[in-house]
């Protein structure tokens, strides 16, 4: 039945193939691993559709006693504040990622260039902040009083623009995938520094940029602490994560301090979201970022393999 070409290809296939039992084991392990990743999320989705009554009776379950879309109905009743924070999250992530990738690239590129004399100093400068930080209160004072990062979008974007870790990734990536000859050739051909970086180097390191962009996008999407610190009054700027975190932290506080608050705790509990509501919010937060993964994945895989095929 098989056409002859496949016969000639067989030895090739064999070269890297593993025996059937080994392959079965590998697949089983990977399948199990995928399940570990997917099942918790499925569980969250199921809980978000579980009726509160069912949670009260039998707790969290894959097979709830009764289903309900009440949590989502409630979420959509939050209305403006929810859409507003959805928009904020997207806006912060988009602008933040674009700016921080640009910054990372602009910092990492000179560090990679061997003809930049001060690169050791600047390398150390960024690396140093990875190990030693100024502490929370001084950071807060600098951001708020010196830089004016308070009650505005900049407060949610600027503090995370620069990450030494990403600079190191980017620099290493440049070192492994851009030969010095390429830059020399460009210079000889009359390309200016900016032209070389954006027209010649950038296309080569696209996978590296994508990796850093993914890391940054995730960091911005998941960030809530900056909002807690710098957005106190202008609640229009709250990102989605902080909206959820606020509810979660309120619930935690009551759980920990109910013995101190006494009867007050019961009054407070009225304003806390139900279990299913929390899960519904988690779903709303996870879905957009999960949708972004496939687009980045192509580059990330390319990034993993690109360095290894050099002759």
């Amino acid at each position, binding site marked *: 039945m098989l056409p002859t070409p496949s016969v000639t290809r067989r030895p090739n296939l064999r070269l890297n193939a593993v025996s059937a039992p080994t392959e079965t084991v590998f697949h089983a392990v990977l399948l199990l691993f995928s399940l570990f990743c997917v099942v918790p999320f499925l569980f969250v989705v199921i809980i978000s559709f579980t009726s509160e009554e069912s*949670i*009260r009776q039998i707790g969290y379950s894959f097979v709830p006693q009764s289903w309900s879309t009440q949590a989502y109905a409630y979420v959509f009743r939050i209305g403006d*504040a929810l859409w507003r924070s959805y928009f904020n999250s997207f806006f912060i992530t988009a602008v933040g990622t674009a700016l921080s990738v640009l910054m990372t690239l602009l910092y990492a590129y000179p560090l990679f260039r061997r003809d930049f004399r001060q690169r050791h100093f600047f390398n150390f400068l960024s690396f140093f902040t990875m190990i030693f930080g100024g502490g*929370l*209160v001084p950071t*807060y*004072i600098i951001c*708020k*009083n010196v830089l004016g990062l308070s009650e505005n979008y900049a407060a949610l974007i600027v503090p995370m623009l620069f990450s030494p870790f990403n600079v190191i990734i980017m620099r290493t990536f440049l070192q492994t995938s851009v030969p010095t000859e390429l830059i020399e050739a460009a210079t000889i051909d009359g390309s200016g520094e900016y032209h070389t970086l954006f027209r010649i180097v950038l296309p080569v390191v696209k996978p590296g940029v994508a990796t850093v962009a993914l890391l940054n996008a995730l960091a911005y999407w998941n960030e809530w602490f900056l909002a*807690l*610190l710098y957005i*106190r*009054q202008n*609640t229009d700027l709250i990102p989605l994560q902080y909206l959820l*975190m*606020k*509810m*979660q*932290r*309120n*619930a*935690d*506080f*009551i*759980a*920990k*301090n*109910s*013995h*101190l*608050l*006494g*009867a*007050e705790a*019961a*009054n*407070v*509990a009225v*304003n806390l979201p139900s*279990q299913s509501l929390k899960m519904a919010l988690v779903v709303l937060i996870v879905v957009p970022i999960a949708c972004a993964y496939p687009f980045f994945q192509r580059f990330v895989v390319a990034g993993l393999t690109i360095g290894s095929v050099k002759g």
Partner: protein
Amino acid sequence: MRKILALLLTLLLTASVFTFATAEAASLTPAELTIMFHGSNVTDDSAVLAKVNEYLKDKINASLKVIWGTWGDFDETSTMSLNAGDPIDMYFTCSWSQDEYNAYAKKGMWVRLDDPDNNLIEKYAADLWATLPQVLTDGAKIQGSDGLGVYAVPGYKDIATQNCWDINVDLLTKYGYTLDDIRNADYYSFGDILKTVKAGEGDSFYPLLVEGMVLERMATNSIIVAGDSGSTNLLSYYMNPTDISAEGPYGNVMLNKFATDEYKKFVEKTREYYLAGYIDPGLAVADTANDLRKNKQLTGQYLIGTQSYSLGYELQASQERNIHVEMVPCTPAYVDTTSSQGAMVAISTASANPERAMMFLNLLNTDPYLMMLLNYGVEGIHYTLNADGLVQFTDKRADYQPWTNGMGNVTLLTPTADQGKDFWDTFKAYYGAAKKIPIIGFTFDASNVQVEQSALVNVAAEYALALDTGAVDPAEKLPEFLQKLSDAGMQTYVDEANAQLTAFLAAQ
């Protein structure tokens, strides 16, 4: 010439209007005040603040900005702002929040309000001071950066603590018992009642619905020591359950909570109840115990619960749970440091305008209009008054729910329809009758034993709740627990507390 005359006349007219408008608050320059509250659930304050500012302009020529701290973020944001010196004039503070009244007064974060050189209370808030019960004004006097004095305005709210047995009366009467059977019994003699109800309701029913730490306090008559670790108390002060103001069985000393005979007796009894199936095992899991308890309460699946009481709670609970709930007191109501310093507002030393802040606090705590406005919102928008003149909330209230007790003198508020017309009379009578414990005003300052405290809390987090709910065997685990505590420096911690208490009592 005519033009100039016209201009002059216009100027004159404007000037006279201007003088007329500001006549009342003329001597004051305009000021902007910022205040940070705790426990709010506010998403839209525009309507309220517009009215408040209109009113404040006339009264004290000031405008108000509010930072609505929530339960979850207040601790972090308030301490951050205080340490960074943010221009916030007033902060909520108390004995149990992170910006703790005593500790931050010592650090010099609060303005001393009765400073002999500049007595703000005498100058601007004499009315306010006169309306507060003595328990509160005395309780607010502490040792701070500028000597012994008052560093915050205490809120007149539920200032007493009373722990009660929370009784599901419907279920109790179903088995032929009456409330008197509970009143005449105590924790150690509930056994028969629990047994009957457990037998009648079946295996999956757990009659005792407890909060471990509250139950421990109720069974041993101990109180929360202000300044002790909040998440898991380590110290015990035993009070006298029959005469609150007298000394308890051990006198005025701090004890290692877990090393007393009372504690041993309590955990042994609890273990017995647990093994008999009276206590849900889920109550021993710290993270979910509270949710579980709430769910069981709402579905009425309990017979006897534990509750720290506030006036009128039984009515509210009956309504929420759709059953008849009664509260049976375990001890008389008492006032301790935790409750007398339970909610206060302090003026920050970073404030540019402490005098105006004091005027504002005076107004807030004496002027029913302002208190109603800030607390319940705008009449006609957030609430309406019914035929009896009682408050009925509208749907808009969902956008504006500050934490009532965290604001100030709540007795200025018009009662809600649920509370009934005479609510504040009963309130004042109930809390006015509450007696002080002998060590009121004492707050333990754990800063010298911080290392020990965090180690001890870690140990206690592992054992305390499990023992308090009977989930583990005290015969085996209690000695192990005590050993680990003493390894972690429990004696140093208790000695430090006692040294401070002795010094406190000697100073009085």
